[in-house]
């Protein structure tokens, strides 16, 4: 069965780029343009992973993650932040908000996928990716 991933980013380019990489690796991708949009879409089906940006106009990534976690139903949903911010403080905020993992943008397809598989706890398919 295909794994479902929700990609949250306010940049259309980034959404497309990440969608492409993950679709190539056999994920089913749903995208959202900001935290608020993502919250709605999150309830629409079940996801195996959320990949979210931090700096977004409407509801930012931290708040989005906090809300997801506060509902209590999504404690085990892996949430990965992918952000251009690389300061330890940003990571700290991310982890404390409830993220599982932090990837610094931009990330090449291969490391991105490897990291995602790492979070999912499954071995990356050999030669997987682009």
């Amino acid at each position, binding site marked *: 069965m295909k794994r479902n991933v929700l990609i949250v980013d306010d940049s259309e380019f980034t959404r497309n780029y990440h969608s492409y990489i993950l679709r190539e690796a056999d994920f089913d991708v749903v995208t959202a343009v900001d935290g608020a949009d993502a919250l709605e879409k999150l309830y629409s089906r079940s996801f195996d992973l959320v990949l979210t940006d931090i700096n977004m106009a*409407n509801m930012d990534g931290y708040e989005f993650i906090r809300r997801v976690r506060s509902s209590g139903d999504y404690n085990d949903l892996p949430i990965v932040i992918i952000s251009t911010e690389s300061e330890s403080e940003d990571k700290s905020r991310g*982890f404390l908000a409830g993220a*599982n993992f932090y990837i610094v943008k931009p990330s090449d397809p291969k490391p991105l996928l490897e990291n995602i598989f*790492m979070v*999912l706890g*499954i071995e*990356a398919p050999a030669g997987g990716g682009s």
Partner: protein
Amino acid sequence: MMDFGDLQQLQASFRHEADDLLTDLGGALLLLEQDPHNMDVVNRVFRAMHTLKGSGASAGFRRLANFVHHVEEVFNRIRNQQLQSTPELIDATLKACDCCAMLLELGSTGSDTPLPLETEVLAAIRPFLPEMDKAAGKAQATKTPATAPARYKIGFRPNREIFFSGTDPASLLLEIADLGEIEIRCDTVDLLAARDFDPEKCYLGWEVFVETMQSEDALRAVFLFVEDDCDVSIEKQEPAASARSDSKEARFRGAAQQGFTALGFALDQCQSGDEKQGLATAHRAAQTLISAGKAHGHARATAAAQEVLDAIKAVQQDGILDGDWLLKVKALIAAASQAVDSPTTEPAVSTSQPAPSRPAEGSSAPEAAIGAAAPSIRVDAVKLDALMRLAGELLVARGALPAFAERVELIAREESPKSMAKEMRDAGAKVSRLADDLQATVMSIRMMPVRQVFQRFPRLVRDLARNLDKNIELHVNGEETELDKTVIDSIGDPLTHIIRNAADHGIESKADRAQKGKSAVGRIDLSAYTRGSTVVIEVKDDGKGLDPDKLKRRAVEKGLLSESAVGAMDEEAAFKIILVAGFSTVDKVTDVSGRGVGMDVVRNGVEALHGAIHIKSEIGKGTRFRIELPASLLVSKAIRVAVSGQEVVLPIDTIRNMVKIPKSVVRTVQGQQIAPVRGTVFPMLWLAHALSFDRVEERRAELAVAIIEAASGPYGLVVDHFLGEVEIVVKPLNGVLAKVPEYVGAAIMGDGRTVLVVNTDRLFSLQRPPAIPQAELAPGLRPPIPLARAAAAGR
């Protein structure tokens, strides 16, 4: 250890020495121009600069020292024959001397903006310093330089007593940083687990990854004087490791590292009191470690991470998070870290000891290294407080003298006691003068410019503007306005919230401003000025302004206020809704101002300082917050009043005026007594009732009423008599009385009696919320609903 007098003496001495050095330097430079190869002269120049730098920094002339440092580097290169002296260089260095003289004049004061000359000199010598920005290759001349940078892993666990050896671990880390690119990981687990934390001890350990051209010996030399009693390990990392940094192995390590980092944050959070969140974060971090282990097929790491997770789960269920648990988890984490490292490289250097005996840091070592010389006077707060108390009590004591004199006069009307009474009066007047002087002196020490608080805001606004993608300019005015230290210390948070709010909700987005034809750059004005004994701080923005109707609507929607309550509100009362806890005017939640928590901090903070807030706003034009604060908090004036045969005092700063009104004008509207005073209708409160005194004087035809300006709105406080004005020193109440919200403290009177000070600001709102809808009261009334709610909610 070193007091202000010492520092002044030291600075005077340095100024003197520096004058001599600069004169000598000028002479030497001219000599060098004639004879560029004379090494004695080069050394003389170098030494003069070296002394200027070292002694300057020690005497608090850090800016001078920093400046000289660059020039000194140039001469160091000449000394090492890496560089030739040229006329241009001499020229620049002579200018540098002029610049030093100017910096010497400036001393430790002045802004940080470089002097034009400073910039000019630094630009002129830059060509002589190929690596001015990067200190990477300091010792390149003597060391055999490696062709490619090598990566080292340095484990450094100082002896706990390291501070006693005068070594600052941070300075050693900084030294490593000078050698190349570094990455530092700090092990705080011992600090977290410490049961009897001793701030003089060092509980931290560090792992430093450094990529450097320097040899391993050079790294080892950093620890030369500490290696005997600290754990220092230096390992060259496989050259392959960095080359392979893109490998899957590296990715696993990176992922695991994130798990450890997150665990660190999580334990910090547990320690800071938020156990539930902290444990949830730790739980996730451990899961990440397990997932990474699984994904990488690393059974040992997976198992070790599982143990960490189990320990976290155990405490999540049973909920006892103590030092023992932290120690245990720390050991498990260390084991996991070792497991992660296990297959390809040697076991982890340092994290393996459970180690009560070992490591780590203490106080704020990393920052301690170079504290900037503060331009202000440091006064021991304890001494200051003692001095203040003395001054206050002296002031009170003098109040007893005239009373005493009066009594002497009354008792005996003969000539001699009369003259004695006069003498006593004179003595009293003298004490009085002394007390005033003493108080003024002490107050002046306590007074500090608001600059101390204001200086953080330009940065705040800059960052906010960047995060919010807005153009915002902050204009600061009146930074020199002085406020009491206590006020200075506490006003930062409220101001931060107001400014954040202005930037976030006040100033419109770029697009909105363009559309409204406003200037592209939003403006926030922060200003302070003194008005009598009050200091006013204003935060004004030219943003979209507050919409009173919208605020009222929201307040009703959120269930914070009733329909009828908001109906009676005037505009300012409506603006103040945003200061109510739990209120937020925005539909969306932004990261900047959070979720409506925050603005109530403003009200609470200002109230605690006995201050007042006023808000003015015009839709489309902007909003102005005005905070009025008492400039000082020491001795305050108060009104003595009699009530039910008792004496209490009312703080004068909340009293708008004192009037007598005929009892007949008081009417009762649905349980609330109201009365018109000078054309405005106020709700009335009988002090005797409010303080639960039994005996209430009902027969009087005329009522003595103090109109109180409370934060929740004005009201009339009915007392039996006004007894006069006094100066009091308010002391907080202890024990059981501390919990009685009707009083703010006790005042010591001139005759030594202690009298309670009524909390007039909250007295009204402490009563049950009036049963009547506010709308039935006369216009102009500001209903105390929000505060009454808060009080009812159990403050």
